[in-house]
């Protein structure tokens, strides 16, 4: 290359990048991904637009002898880009996504592949290909090119719509990842078929390819994992490591090129086997991303734009063909995945949204098409049609998604999902944390029974038992400790632990000397992020009231829900009564009852007491707290009574295992340091009671486990999002 050529190349780069960014602004305004702008810029610079307006300018800007350099630059860019795509592909996305993802991803490949192949076989081969192209290669290639999904564009759209964390987004991204891998494998196979001169050679190529993949997975992957662990340990990604990785990348690309599948696969494979844990993948992606995506990738787009000759579609018939191809592509991809999604139980709207998302082909399609054109499998005319198809399917994704799955729908679905999730079987263990504070042994068994009911069959709660020793008792407890090897420290925790063991509960014990028990309970609850602080109660010597002394202090200081268990031989939690007037404590009590209903299948009765003159809002509030179908499982009794306390007491005598009641004057329950009031409901109710206090300003309700479970399901999805368009 002489200096003139360098100047030429620099001018080309300036024009390409400048124009892409310029059109990119417009695309942004239309709410389209940047990739659209880059492709359009490429086409505009090619014979389709610039060539029409001023052929002289086209020749000056892109003379024929400059094309090889541009092509090489584009290829290097693609190798790096495929490496980045591989880097973003987290193997965790490929597995453990559940039944629906598997079904959807399979059908979203098979259906469009079948449609593409059939159309290729019956129609396009005759009309748009020439006999020198082997029939089988052409048919397979058409199948593959129809079944591509653009993983990066999809990830970008999902992030922009805030769908990444939703179930829909998780399914779509998992399917796209599976599609990606499958399509590349298929394509590698097709390329090997096309390049091979005989069947034996094709078989040999396939064999080598499989061997190479095995080599990468079995040998290179563990090595990289070790390298990743070293680099992640704050050594930083030195230039040596980057150079080493790039060398390996180039070697991998070279190997696959020599094997006879394309260099792109080696790059992709190498990116895919780099461990995603630790910082190596992220750090590498950061270093390479800008140069690749901003500088080199537009060159590739421009290059494919230069090869796109819309002028070739000069008859109405060819435009018709182009339209039919677009229709087929959408039908296969959208139809295939939407129907599959619907079959797995998603609503039509969600299923449609998945279909639209999977229909995004973006730049991946362009990569495939350029490969096909290079190999001579498809003609320039068909290439142009397919480029238009890729553009249209990518372009329509955002608006159609907005139309089919508007933000209101999205919000509604997410709300429903939150409500539905806890009942679902696929729910991850929740982080519902209960701190059991035991001061005397006798409270232990009842607390264990209640914890059992709160955590449910699947032990979905973290339980901590806290016993605080008063300073003067410390020595005694320590002597007992020395003998106690079972793990339950101190005699006070032994009854609790004994019962917990019988019930199959996992409880972590904690005990220490404390001169300010209330403060230490609150601090520990905060440190454990406890959702509920459960205090045991025993009849003290002097005070008559439950809500006095330490209980009062804890209730005043705690930033979360506090409940006191008054245990009168609680051995099961089957029938639960919640007297309800509507205070925040009552609502917290209802929240706990809701958990008992869900986790232990307890039968919940809500006693809504209204004043004789006022109208009741109870049903509405119960409906709000027990969404959808659960509301039906709750019995609501509305009573008009001048004294709520009296009414609750009457009902409590009807044989309940547990009465969950919020503190408050309406129930005769007020927490005071020195209680003189009578707390009749505590004294006279025959069964066990749970007195609940919810602090002001804290999130209203014992939160349902759904939000954490849901986030926990897709923590790695965020990592997939590249700043790419």
């Amino acid at each position, binding site marked *: 290359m002489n200096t003139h050529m360098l100047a030429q190349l620099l001018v080309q780069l300036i024009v390409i990048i400048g124009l892409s960014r310029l059109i990119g602004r417009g695309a942004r305004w239309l709410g389209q991904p940047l990739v659209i702008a880059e492709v359009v810029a490429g086409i505009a610079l090619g014979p389709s637009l610039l060539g029409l307006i001023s052929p002289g300018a086209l020749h000056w800007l892109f003379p024929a002898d400059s094309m090889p350099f541009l092509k090489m630059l584009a290829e290097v860019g693609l190798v790096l880009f495929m490496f980045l795509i591989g880097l973003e592909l987290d193997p965790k996305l490929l597995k453990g996504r559940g039944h629906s993802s598997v079904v959807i991803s399979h059908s979203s490949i098979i259906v469009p592949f079948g449609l593409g192949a059939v159309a290729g076989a019956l129609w396009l081969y005759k009309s748009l290909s020439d006999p020198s192209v082997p029939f089988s290669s052409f048919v397979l290639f058409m199948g593959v090119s129809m079944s591509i999904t653009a993983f990066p564009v999809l990830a970008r759209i999902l992030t922009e719509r805030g769908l990444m964390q939703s179930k829909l987004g998780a399914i779509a991204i998992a399917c796209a990842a599976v599609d990606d891998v499958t399509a590349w494998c298929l394509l590698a196979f097709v390329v090997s078929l096309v390049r091979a001169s005989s069947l034996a050679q094709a078989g040999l190529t396939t064999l080598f390819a499989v061997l190479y993949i095995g080599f990468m997975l079995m040998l290179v992957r563990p090595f990289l994992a070790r390298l990743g662990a070293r680099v992640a340990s*704050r*050594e*930083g990604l030195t230039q040596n490591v980057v150079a080493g990785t790039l060398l390996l990348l180039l070697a991998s690309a070279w190997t696959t090129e020599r094997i006879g599948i394309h260099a792109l696969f080696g790059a992709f494979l190498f990116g895919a086997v780099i461990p995603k844990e630790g910082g190596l993948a992220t750090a590498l992606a950061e270093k390479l991303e800008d140069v690749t995506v901003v500088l080199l990738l537009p060159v590739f787009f421009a290059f494919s734009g230069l090869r796109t000759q819309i002028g070739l579609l000069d008859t109405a018939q060819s435009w018709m063909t182009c339209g039919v191809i677009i229709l087929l592509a959408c039908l296969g991809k959208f139809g295939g995945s939407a129907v599959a999604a619907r079959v797995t139980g998603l609503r039509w709207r969600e299923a449609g949204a998945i279909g639209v998302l999977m229909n995004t082909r973006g730049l991946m399609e362009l990569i495939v098409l350029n490969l096909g054109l290079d190999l001579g499998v498809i003609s320039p005319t068909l290439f142009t049609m397919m480029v238009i198809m890729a553009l249209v399917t990518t372009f329509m994704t955002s608006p159609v998604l907005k139309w089919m799955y508007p933000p209101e729908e999205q919000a509604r679905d997410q709300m429903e999902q939150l409500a539905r999730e806890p009942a679902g079987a696929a729910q991850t263990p929740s982080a519902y944390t209960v701190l059991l504070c035991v001061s005397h042994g006798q409270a232990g068994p009842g607390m264990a029974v209640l914890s059992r009911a709160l955590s449910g069959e699947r032990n979905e709660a973290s339980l*901590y038992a806290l016993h605080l*020793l008063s*300073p003067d008792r*410390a*020595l005694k*407890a*320590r002597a007992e*400790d020395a003998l106690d090897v079972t*793990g339950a*420290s*101190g005699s006070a925790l032994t009854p609790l632990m004994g019962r917990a063991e019988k019930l199959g509960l996992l409880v*972590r*014990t*904690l*005990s*220490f*000397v*404390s001169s300010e028990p209330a*403060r*230490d309970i609150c*601090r*520990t609850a*905060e*440190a*454990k*992020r406890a959702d509920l602080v459960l205090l045991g109660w025993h009849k003290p010597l002097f005070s008559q009231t439950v809500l006095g002394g330490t209980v009062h202090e804890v209730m005043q200081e705690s930033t979360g829900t506090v409940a006191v268990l008054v245990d009168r031989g609680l051995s099961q939690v089957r029938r639960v009564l919640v007297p309800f007037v509507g205070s925040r404590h009552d609502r917290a009590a209802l929240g706990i009852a809701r958990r008992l209903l869900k986790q232990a299948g307890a039968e919940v009765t809500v006693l809504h007491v209204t004043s004789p003159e006022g109208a009741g809002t109870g049903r509405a509030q119960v409906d709000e707290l027990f969404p959808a179908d659960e509301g039906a499982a709750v019995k609501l009794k509305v009573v008009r009574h001048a004294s709520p306390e009296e009414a609750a007491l009457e009902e409590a005598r009807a044989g309940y295992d547990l009465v969950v009641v919020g503190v408050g004057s309406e129930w005769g329950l007020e927490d005071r340091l020195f209680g003189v009031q009578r707390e009749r409901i505590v004294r006279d109710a025959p069964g066990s009671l749970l007195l609940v206090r919810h602090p002001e300003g804290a999130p209203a309700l014992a939160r349902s486990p759904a939000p954490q479970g849901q986030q926990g399901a897709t923590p790695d999805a965020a990592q997939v999002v590249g700043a790419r368009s």
Partner: protein
Amino acid sequence: MHLGATLRLLRVDAGLSLRDLARRIGVSSAYLSRVEHGVDAPPTQERLTAIARELDVPPALLMDVANRVSPYVAGYLEDVPAAGTLLLDIARRKLTGAQLARVRAFLDAEFPLREARGDEPVPALGALLCAERVVVQLSCEDYADALDVASGRLASALPGLDVAGLAEGLRQREDETPSQVGNGVAVPHAFVPGAAPVAALVTLARPLKTDAPDGQPLRLVVALVDGHLGRARLMRLAHVARLAGRGLAHRLQGAEDSRQVLETLAELEALR
């Protein structure tokens, strides 16, 4: 006390990589790594001095951590052999820390130093503690629980700080480098921008089986929170490691209330 674990703790806190430190003191990183894991013999005095210089802590402090006689003392003993006899006298009397402090006070009065002491005094641990931040006889099943309890006490000295967040900070640091310095002591530490240095001390009623560098079960947790990175913080960490080497965990094991803990600590720290 485990010198290697302490060195690693200090190195990481100083923000030096293994390779950086190894290069600066002119040894291979493999050797330094072996020292940190206690596989290789402890470094010589010269190397310890070089490490102290790179970490920017007083060399004497590191010598103490390593239970080494400072080269300055060794030189003096060679020059004035009579001084050795005096040391022998002290040893025969089995003087405690407090008594040694009195001996030093006498020396200071009788033979005042003409120039200021070369080493600035190491900040005492006792000054960072108070009765409220001492938890005695904790029994728990997991080290994380001990961190939670310690952060509960620490948070009340750090207004506007959330307990769980602080516990998270301590755990995060712990994940970067294990904070156990051997002899049954762990020194979890966190960085809270702008905070004044505070400490919390937790004695364990039941020793915890953790993977300590010297295989001793954990009996004492000294949690440190600092608002500034750098020399003072490193010196505090090294100081706790030195106390661990002087049997802090063993001495505090019998303590039944926080006052007793603070008294024992004061005695151990009398001569820094």
